[in-house]
């Protein structure tokens, strides 16, 4: 019996989920393995401390606080039927969030600009890829379409679940250069956020450009709207299309945002998958068993490359190259879920 299997037994033991036979299996092992015995003690202690976390209560009655609002909803309900009351409640939520839209707006704009620059760089640096990825982009686009359907508040509320599902359905392939599920999630989040947030006035171009990306090349679109900030992307895409008229025809845009290549590294035991989107300066580590995300690194200035795993498949090594070409070596430890420089 290996320690990894015992770990699962110990976890289930803590939740009272083991039968007698499993319990004695676990105890037998812990009797001979000091590491597992210590881990069991720590887990038990942690669990009992979690159980004892204070049952906090609000400092005032929440229901009393919302009574006037409920009163209004009730009045609207009597007047206009239940549909009306739902709409009113959504509108109310919208306005209560309106006090801090600008930060989100900047974030969204910078996201679109960044995407434009990335696509531009990729078009310039790697034009042969488009013909390869073009085929899959249609499929990705249709997935995107269903996800970014108009956002009622219920749908937004269920987004968590929807994202879970789409993560779980991501096909496993160590070669696929397209982290489509993740990217389209990000885009649909932008789109749904924009349409849901009624208080935001200047989101038109952004939500249009992410919607348009389903059928059209992103770069020219972004370039039109963000002439000042996205010029590098625009120029480079123009240049590369001049050099490669066959690869990129103006009437048939070659790719959607979803086809951005990324470095993917699967651990040799198949347990972990690390993905670094080129140009984005961030990487993610997924557990391939259930497609859960173990780690999502913070965004850094620079490019992450040379992802590879150590022999035990516990540590992911990667290289961060900054704008000046200066390289630093990093590692990410899956056991402690921690990244450090080497």
């Amino acid at each position, binding site marked *: 019996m290996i320690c990894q299997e015992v770990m699962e037994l110990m976890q289930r033991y803590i939740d009272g989920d083991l039968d007698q036979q499993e319990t004695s299996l676990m105890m037998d092992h812990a009797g001979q393995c000091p590491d597992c015995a210590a881990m069991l003690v720590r887990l038990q202690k942690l669990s009992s401390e979690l159980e004892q976390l204070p049952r906090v209560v609000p400092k005032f009655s929440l*229901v009393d606080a919302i009574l006037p609002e409920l009163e209004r909803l009730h009045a609207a309900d009597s007047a206009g039927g239940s549909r009306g009351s739902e709409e009113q409640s959504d509108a109310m939520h919208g306005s209560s969030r309106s006090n801090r839209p600008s930060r989100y707006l900047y974030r969204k704009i910078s996201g679109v600009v960044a995407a434009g620059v990335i696509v531009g760089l990729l078009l310039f640096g790697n034009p042969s890829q488009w013909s390869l990825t073009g085929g899959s982009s249609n499929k990705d686009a249709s997935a995107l379409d269903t996800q970014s359907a108009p956002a009622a508040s219920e749908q937004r*509320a269920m987004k968590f679940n929807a994202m879970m599902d789409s993560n779980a359905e991501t096909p496993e392939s160590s070669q696929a250069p397209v982290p489509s599920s993740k990217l389209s999630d990000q885009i649909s989040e932008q789109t749904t956020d924009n349409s849901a947030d009624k208080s935001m006035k200047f989101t038109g171009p952004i939500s249009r450009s992410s919607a348009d990306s389903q059928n059209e090349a992103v770069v020219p679109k972004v370039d039109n709207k963000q002439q000042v900030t996205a010029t590098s992307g625009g120029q480079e895409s123009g240049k590369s299309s001049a050099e490669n008229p066959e690869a990129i025809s103006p009437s048939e845009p070659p790719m959607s945002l979803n086809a951005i290549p990324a470095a993917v590294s699967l651990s040799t035991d198949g347990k972990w998958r690390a993905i670094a989107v080129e140009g984005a300066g961030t990487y993610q580590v997924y557990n391939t*068993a259930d497609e*859960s995300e173990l780690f999502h690194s913070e965004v850094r200035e620079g490019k992450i490359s040379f992802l590879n795993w150590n022999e035990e498949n516990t540590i992911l090594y990667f290289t961060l190259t900054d704008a000046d070409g200066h390289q630093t070596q990093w590692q990410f430890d899956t056991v402690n879920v921690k990244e450090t420089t080497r």
Partner: protein
Amino acid sequence: MVEPALIKAAQAGDREALVALLREIEHQVYRTAYYLLNNEQDALDASQDALIRIYTKIDSYEEKAQFRTWVQRIVTNICIDKFRRKKPSVSIDEHDMVFQAGDNVETEVLSAYAAEEIREAIGKLPEHHRTVVVLRYLQDFSYNEIADSLNLPLNTVKSYLFRARQQLQTLLHDYQKGGVRG
């Protein structure tokens, strides 16, 4: 536990019953919001939003689900929405920059973690790991109840919970090695 009769009355349009029902669940709603958002004001806002949503959506509750898992689904969705807006990425290692590591294995096992440290550590978990831990320990939900609330497969719930505990254990372990507690 909320009486089924009260839920039925509320669904039938008895407004007083609906308000009484909200009073019964406001503490459990707040508790989840507080531990998910790690901030009192955000928790107050989110739990009020959740109660209003429950008020307007009570008709959509179907008896085949447990009422409390339905309630927790609403509040966790609101919180997840909220902290996605607020904090786009989660950093697990920020405390490493502050504390120097040192070895003190004996005190480590003996001393109990303060609730505050545990709460902070929970706040460092990725969002679905955090949600699973909160439902397990602050709502005393079973694997199945968590799966129902979050609409996740049972195995996924287990793997999130196990990984979350492993991460918490590591985070708190590191805290102690750093000697921040005596």
